[in-house]
């Protein structure tokens, strides 16, 4: 699925200050029976977002009209648990393009990078400050420049540097995918098999 290229982005944020949010919460297993990648946004955070009778849970942040935007801010160890890429598809399909946390589970991070969803890791105190700032005023914005690996937080003139692998950064900016890369080096792969005597 070709993803939008991403480089510069300025947006309001949605704060979700819960730690260890696992992919079962992001998209529960019972919604994994689909055979396409589309439409998962509807069930993003399903069991937190809706009550048992199907009505919206008013206290959940996605149902609070004051908060919106393309940036989700979450507590540490975001995306732990199951490897389901459906979690990333759901977040993306809902409209988020960036997730900020103090740390991400590995598989989730890889899946995000493979799907045009930018995971930004910031020190925990900065994440907590940002959450506070957004909670105080949902209108505040973050400014992200992927090329320069910089993020400007509200109320601070200083831009913070974030880490991202250069190869992955180029992929995101240009809308490339690992699979394009691998298909292009197929000769090297065949060479490797021959050298090792495997087929």
């Amino acid at each position, binding site marked *: 699925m070709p993803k939008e290229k991403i480089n510069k982005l300025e947006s309001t944020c949605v704060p979700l200050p819960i730690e260890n949010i696992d992919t079962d919460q992001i998209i529960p297993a019972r919604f994994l029976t689909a055979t396409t990648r589309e439409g998962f946004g509807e069930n993003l955070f399903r069991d937190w977002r809706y009550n048992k009778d199907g009505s919206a849970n008013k206290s959940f942040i996605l149902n609070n009209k004051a908060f919106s935007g393309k940036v989700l801010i979450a507590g540490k160890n975001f995306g732990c648990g*199951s490897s*389901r890429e*459906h979690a990333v598809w759901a977040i993306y399909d809902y409209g988020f393009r960036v997730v900020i946390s103090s740390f991400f589970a*590995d598989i989730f991070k890889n899946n995000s990078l493979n799907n045009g969803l930018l995971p930004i890791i910031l020190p925990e105190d900065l994440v907590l400050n940002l959450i506070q700032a957004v909670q105080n005023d949902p209108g505040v914005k973050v400014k992200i420049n992927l090329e320069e690996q910089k993020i400007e937080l509200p109320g601070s003139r200083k831009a913070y540097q974030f880490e991202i692998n250069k190869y992955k950064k180029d992929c995101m900016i240009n809308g490339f995918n690992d699979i394009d*890369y691998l298909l292009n080096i197929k000769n090297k792969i065949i060479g490797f098999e021959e050298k090792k005597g*495997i087929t």
Partner: protein
Amino acid sequence: MKAKTLFEKIWDSHAVYSIEDGPEVLYIDQHYIHEVTSPQAFKGLDDRGIKVFRPKRTLATADHNIPTKDQHLTIKEELSRLQVEKLTENCKKHKINLFGLNHKKNGIVHVIGPELGFTRPGMTIVCGDSHTSTHGAFGTIAFGIGTSEVEMVLATQCLLQTKPKTMRINVNGDLKKGVTSKDIIMYIIAKLTSGGATGYFVEYAGTAIEKLSMEARMTICNMSIEMGARGGLIAPDKITFAYLKKRIGKLTDKEWESQLRKWKKLKSDPGVKFDKEIKIQASDINPMITFGTNPGMAITVTGNIPLSGGLEDKKDESFLKSLNYMGFKPGDKLAGRKVDYVFLGSCTNGRIEDFREFASLVKGRKKASNITALLVPGSKLVEEQVKREGLLEILNDAGFELRQPGCSSCLAMNEDKIPAGKYAVSTSNRNFEGRQGPGARTLLASPLTAAAAAITGKITDPSEFIN
């Protein structure tokens, strides 16, 4: 030559190519797929108009959403049925070996891979499933991947990966009675927390690990992901080789000997440095149980829930949210509390040894009347063996039924759901909110602890029943 860890030896021998300032291209020896995380990957190949590159290196099974009763009938749930049909169609089209529903070798992907001899020491193994770490028990680099990566492996037999850091966890000494490998890994996760090994690949070592059977080692490696580790592995030894000898057919003595020579080199060099090293005394470990909604929230079965989530200077919102979901309070004692369900199964504890342990404890006793039990073998072969070894009779006499193999209540994609608000002592690997059904409350534990709960109807320390 520079001393290397086992992980590094396997990684380096599979590195096809390194991208400057980027990840490495890693060759994958064995790929496992199942119905839930593969359809979009095949669709990707179709959209590009390409074929599977090395179909013989992929093995498929249907396990996640299949029913565990009346498997010979059509799957009732329409979307699940379509997904399983899609897998069959894709495998046929791409000439992939499929042990699908009703096949005599069907079962949970991480149970059948090893038991059929596909998983072998020194391999790189991936699957669109986080518990692929299970296969590390054979001295492999095995890890879970997302669907885009499944597509990459189908298309090129390779992945782009950044080398993780290495950690060694040494468990030395003897285990107390009633303590199993499940308790070892739950103890480790509780110590490290559910994100404590993120970014690492873990090697388990030490005298307590060396004494474990392959089944028990798989339980440990299986749950590596629950502390965030990319994977976990154990150096192969004579226990590994004996297990494989029975499962790898068609090898002449000479071929076997040459395999063995290679496999025997698969260990970390003496004196090699890991990025992190941890030491644990086996005798410190007691039967464990979880009280919260991530696998790191575990205590001994006889212990009390902690008063806070750990860091005192921090708000404990996540901790309290979790306890609230479980219907517990800080400081509560768990032992003696009534439970409603017991689940024996999953890729963590659905192997023959787990059924032997469960049966050994319920033998001559009766299932408590308040308990609904789901006993789900990890594969057809396990199911058969349960019958052949006479375990089924023991279970039946004690009032238990055996279901057919599958993931079942581990993730409740099929009908095997725990109702909202009910407590389940479960031998699976995740106690996340809603994992076993919306509102279900999961208490992870070993097969012995599950058996003790099944006969008393309450959370019970299994060592009470063991002489």
